[in-house]
């Protein structure tokens, strides 16, 4: 087993442990404590139509791409 596979298994184990399979760690922010998180100012992508456009503006003019949290591919940027 190579090093990358081993790291993935470690990652999987930790995430599963955090997912509720383990009873030792409980979610520490209760549903009734999430008012602030639900406020529009906490929304990463308030309006998808506007976010998609500004991503396209930068993607067409910069060499870097990806890890923007949105689906992509085939932007027709030539």
């Amino acid at each position, binding site marked *: 087993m190579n090093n*990358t*596979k081993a*790291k*993935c*298994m*470690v*990652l*999987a184990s*930790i*995430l*599963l442990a*955090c*997912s*509720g399979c383990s009873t030792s760690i*409980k*979610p*520490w*922010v209760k*549903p009734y*404590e*999430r008012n*602030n*998180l639900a*406020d*529009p*100012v*906490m929304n*990463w992508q*308030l*309006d*998808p*139509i*506007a976010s*998609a*456009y*500004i991503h396209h*503006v*930068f993607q067409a*003019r*910069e*060499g*870097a*791409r*990806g*890890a*923007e*949290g949105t*689906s*992509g*591919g*085939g*932007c*027709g940027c*030539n």
Partner: protein
Amino acid sequence: MVVVVVINPVKNMNGEYMKVKYLIFTALFIVVFMTLSSNAAVLPEDRADAMYHSYQGGGMSIDGPSILLRKKIGKSVSVSTNYYIDMVSSASIDVLATASPYKEERKEHSLSVDYLHDKTVLSLGYSQSKESDFDAKSLHFDVSQDFFGDLTTLSFGFSKGNDEISQNGNETFKETATRANYRLGLSQVATKNLVLGMNLEAITDEGYLNNPYRSYRYQDANSATGFSYATEIYPNTRTSNAASLRARYFLPNKAAIYANARVFSDTWGIDANTYKLGYSQSFMNNWLMDFHLRHYSQTSADFYRDLFDRQDQFNFMARDKEMSTFNDLSIGLTTRYLFKISSAPWIKSSSINLSIDHIQFDYENFRNVLAEQQMGTEPFYSFSANVIRFYVSLWY
């Protein structure tokens, strides 16, 4: 913590790409496992958006409409479609140096379906972009899973794209390229005021990857200017990796401060960093303002030069300013006003929005050949652009 270990930079980019693929398969395993033991997430809200967009700068004028519709079908399915047009009028420095200004139109259609099952959302999408000389089709598949009391969201996705490239005025020119994207994301509610996020994305390209209209510049003693141009030659493969971290913190008085950072690297030798800092503020119940700064910098591709010593000097040669060493800084402001457009019971809310971004591009090894100075001593090119997004949204 573990993710930081996995994204440590290594020299072998294909190895890095394989790591992202393994991470995505690992994420798939976790999602499948947890789908069996979880309950309830939500689909996106039903909404309609109509936007006018405009980009003006560097001799380019691009504007047009974009329409987005999203509607639930039953309790488990949401469908969305987007229709987008770019109307381009170009007299950029690339065009003026070697060709004539032109006008063209790009149309893009996309359709996606989201399926909700317990805490899992499966998304399948298709998009098609069409120009007179460029067709791009792509298929997207994404999975998102909430767990740990809905404090954690794990997502991963895959896209496959096919491009068909032609050249106006040259009927015999026809090339293709394919693209595959592998995405992995993790969002974590850290406290009742703080959300953290992480994204990884590996992209592979294969085929004809350059722009058939772009040229590289080389020294030519037979030319009056001392240089001539020839068609660029790009490598026909490219693999890139990007990793980003983000945080958003709720402040008193209905405000939030947020930051994003992204690192990027590819097999063409481009390394890039992106940083963004922003502030959002709600006020008077129905207003929202957002202010942000974004800085981007990159190194040039290995095969980029502003001026080559001679024609056919290397196997690969490019002079695209997008492949050069440069940085850009943008400053942006968004204003949103929420209101009830009608008393009709099926309308929940509506908004009118205006976003303005100003971007300054400064190139460090791409010279302005239009300056008509001695070859190789022309000033480095720079330009600024203004981006406007004006749109109305309706929730129903």
